[in-house]
């Protein structure tokens, strides 16, 4: 029991991302509205971004900006004092990617709407079947 508790305490960040990711996945699987699906997709991607960012966390460390950088490097820099910069870098990229995907998805959704006058999958399906 105590073990379980320590696991939960030390890993709740991952649990958070999993819950978020599953919400996104649920929306993508179950929802019939295309925009809701797109929202789900966005949540899904954001969850992964959270996951990465939380990997970068380091206890008792500060943001990865060397504040005394202007001194010309007189003070030694210790890795333990700064959190891991790499996940942040990666996630900047991932954020951009998710924005780009979102943009394209929305553009497609607009095209779909122009074509079928609807964003509900059921209605679109029935239109396709009629044709």
């Amino acid at each position: 029991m105590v073990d379980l508790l320590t696991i939960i305490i030390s890993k709740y960040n991952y649990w958070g991302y999993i819950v978020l990711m599953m919400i996104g996945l649920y929306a993508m699987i179950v929802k019939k509205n295309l925009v809701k699906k797109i929202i789900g997709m966005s949540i899904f991607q954001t969850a992964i971004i959270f996951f990465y960012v939380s990997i970068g966390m380091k206890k008792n460390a500060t943001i990865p900006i060397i504040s005394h950088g202007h001194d010309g490097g007189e003070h030694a820099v210790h890795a333990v004092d700064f959190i891991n910069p790499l996940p942040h870098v990666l996630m900047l990229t991932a954020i951009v990617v998710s924005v780009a995907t979102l943009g394209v998805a929305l553009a497609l959704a607009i095209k779909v709407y122009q074509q079928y006058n609807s964003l509900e999958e059921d209605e679109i399906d029935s239109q396709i079947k009629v044709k």
Partner: protein
Amino acid sequence: MKWFGFIAVFLCGSLFIYGTVEFPGWGDPLSPTSTHVSPYYIEKTMEDTSVPNIVTAVLADYRGYDTMFETAVIFSAGIACLFLLRQMKRKKTDFRLYRHTATGITFRIEKGGKLPPTAKEFERIDGLWTPYDLIIKTTGRFIIPFIQIFALYVIAHGHHSPGGGFQGGVILGASFVLFAISHDLRSALNRMSEKLTAFFYTLGVYIYAGTGALCILLGANFLDYSALATILFVDPVTARSHGILIVEIGVGIAVMAVMVILYYNLVSAGKFDEGL
């Protein structure tokens, strides 16, 4: 379907949670992530690039190649939207609407009709046109310069504080979007036309990829900014710092322009006429 989806997602989630059991604890300084590659960045960045903001240094230099493709991603998203939505041929309507700027009176001119001689006092509007809201318009005008200044600061100060090309670019883009929202799309297009936007976002990526290509021409590997030292007349480390700045500016321009073009396209469904 709902229940099936829920059960599937629940099972998947529990599996994932089970998977976290062997993860290192949150913020564990001894985890592999904190001990393998990242310490090098933290300890060497100042030496290598003299950029205090490690994230910026890693973003634009160590993993600069990723970032170039990040720009390319946003560039392709811009083109993709344009490609998908932009309607090149506009339907010509039988009438045009004009509004007298001073009085706010709207005219409807049938096909073949001509404007009164004092044409400069009129502006063309759409069927869905709504008058500007004075408060929003003024507030927008008031805020936008500050946003833009801040954006430029964020781009330029990315070396020393949180910020950089992406963040600054997005903020800069937001200022144009705000302008388009507070006024209307047509006046935004007057300020920042589609071609200008396209020019900007190609310029942005040109700057980035061009810098990289320049490095090849100067005899180093692609994106090895230290090669720029010979033409910037500084030592290689400072050259890296300058190189990072150059590409960050490129990124900023590109991101700004893509944000604007995405907005233009999405909001008017590619017609570029009315919008929000």
